[in-house]
């Protein structure tokens, strides 16, 4: 039997505020343990929280970027549970009146637009960090992250495959980056997701029983956990079994998920309105003020790149996925680059270098202006395309103006006809068989000869001129 996969996601994003959600402690990754803390975020008795206005601002901004309704009268609620990363024994979150609800995000799947519903976006506080000590049987608690503001984005169960989920997560990440609501640093845990998966026979309209997966630390881990879960559920059903609603922990190293808890011992959070905090009333003026500051979003940029710069749809979406790459691209174009070659270099050699060294687009050490001058050196014929690739690597290693590096590396293209003619004659003299082959109509011989000349010139010969001179020499023989 064929099965349809149904996926819903819950994404937690740390907000890019300067301070925590309920106190003035720094919202900053790392730091010595318990040095970004105060009585409020360590839950000392008698301390009182005061909501950071910027948190509501960012939540409204994320909501507008995801086409949500903004809740005019909202409140915060206590979610009660005991775990030492939460010193108050409750997390302040939102239960029934989240800041945003009923929105959507459009994603591009195989050239078609698919709409993924956003159920809600609410604000809440992050928990601290536990360091487990196996030897002593104790845990050390660091509350630096406790009280860092989060938004939790909950999707409708509209996703039908792990590929769609990956595209959705990438799209969501770029929206959060463009709006600067979150810095989205995955390795620092700024963006985390929980995955809900169920399956149903193809054609069935009722949803199957779902399982939730926790501890998914990256988008690629999310994809692996979904694929594993779909397979696990199909195996159970095919063997005549029944799916049990449960929460599972994803172990990415082993590539398996293990049971955490079943529905019977599901958490009983006993939410109630947070008495220490007042209702949040959001006016039309507030919403419009946030709307007026919304930047150009990835989908709009993509359309502009296609229409204005003539990029292909694929190129435009690769370039716009990361705001950093996209901003860099815009700067290149402003510095006079041809948009198409700028996008080719960004997506080709530059991305390859970044991936190899596990770097981010923000780590590019040279300016867009410097890249623009490199591309103009190719256009002017000063250096060949292959020499430019060498200069680019050098620009990563020892960032400098490409003109200087070209000189340093001795890569100026030889376009002097006399010198090139000499090289052609030398190579022809050394390869009589190739001349015979060429006369016999084997065109491959010419490629071999060009290669030999390029090699002799250490890659510096102007290839167009070599082709021309070689043809002339051969035809005169």
């Amino acid at each position, binding site marked *: 039997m064929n099965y349809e996969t149904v996926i819903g996601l819950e994404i937690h994003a740390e907000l890019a*505020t300067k301070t925590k959600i309920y106190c003035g402690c720094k919202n900053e990754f790392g730091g010595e343990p*318990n040095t970004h803390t105060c009585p409020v975020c360590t839950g000392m008795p008698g301390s009182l929280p005061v909501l950071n206005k910027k948190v509501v601002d960012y939540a409204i901004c994320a909501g507008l970027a995801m086409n949500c309704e903004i809740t005019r009268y909202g409140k915060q609620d206590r979610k009660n549970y005991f775990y*030492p990363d939460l010193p108050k024994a409750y997390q302040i979150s939102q239960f029934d009146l989240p800041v945003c609800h009923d929105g959507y995000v459009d994603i591009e799947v195989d050239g078609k637009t698919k709409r993924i519903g956003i159920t809600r976006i609410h604000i809440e506080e992050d928990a601290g960090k536990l360091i*487990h000590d196996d030897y002593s049987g104790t845990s*050390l*608690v660091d509350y630096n992250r406790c009280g860092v503001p989060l938004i939790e984005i909950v999707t409708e169960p509209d996703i039908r495959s792990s590929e769609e989920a990956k595209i959705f997560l990438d799209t969501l990440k770029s929206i959060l980056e463009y709006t600067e609501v979150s810095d989205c640093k995955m390795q620092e845990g700024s963006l985390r997701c929980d995955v809900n998966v169920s399956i149903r026979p193809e054609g069935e309209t009722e949803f199957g029983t779902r399982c939730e997966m926790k501890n998914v630390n990256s988008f690629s881990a999310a994809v692996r956990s979904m694929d594993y879960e779909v397979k696990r559920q199909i195996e159970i059903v095919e063997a005549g079994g029944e799916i049990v609603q449960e929460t599972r922990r994803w172990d990415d190293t082993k590539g398996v998920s293990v049971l955490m808890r079943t529905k019977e011992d599901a958490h009983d959070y006993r939410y109630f309105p947070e008495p220490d905090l*007042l209702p949040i009333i959001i006016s039309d003026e507030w919403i419009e003020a946030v709307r007026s500051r919304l930047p150009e979003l990835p989908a709009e940029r993509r359309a502009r790149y296609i229409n204005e710069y003539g990029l292909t749809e694929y190129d435009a979406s690769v370039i716009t996925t990361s705001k950093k790459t996209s901003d860099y691209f815009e700067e290149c174009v402003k510095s006079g680059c041809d948009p198409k070659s700028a996008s080719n270099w960004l997506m080709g050699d530059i991305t390859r270098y970044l991936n190899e060294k596990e770097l981010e687009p923000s780590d590019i050490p040279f300016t867009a202006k410097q890249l623009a001058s490199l591309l103009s050196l190719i256009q002017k014929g000063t250096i060949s395309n292959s020499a430019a690739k060498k200069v680019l690597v050098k620009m990563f290693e020892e960032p400098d103006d490409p003109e200087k590096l070209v000189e340093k590396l001795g890569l100026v293209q030889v376009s002097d006809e006399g010198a090139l003619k000499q090289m052609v004659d030398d190579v022809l003299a050394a390869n009589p068989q190739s001349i015979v082959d060429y006369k016999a109509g084997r065109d491959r011989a010419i490629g071999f000869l060009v290669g030999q000349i390029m090699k002799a010139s250490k890659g510096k010969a102007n290839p167009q001129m070599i082709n021309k001179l070689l043809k002339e020499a051969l035809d005169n023989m």
Partner: protein
Amino acid sequence: MKISKEEVFHVAKLARLNLTDSEAEKLSIDMESIIGFADKLNELDTEGVVPTAHAIPVSNAFREDEVVPSYENELIIQNAPHAEDGCFVVPRVVE
């Protein structure tokens, strides 16, 4: 509304309270009368009334996103029964 002993034990477990059998017995009767008292409110017609989360008509108390110096680490952990390397020490819990 009847409150069973099992429900009392469940609520006690959520609050991390250890109850003896006789304590649970007594609490089931107490809780029944408390819930029963609240049940009286259900007799009111609340059709069209927005649920009240906050009783006083004040809203939007915010702070600006400005950094205030945090406490010294020594000050923060001085109340901890056990501390190590600037951290609070708790029994090992893995969910």
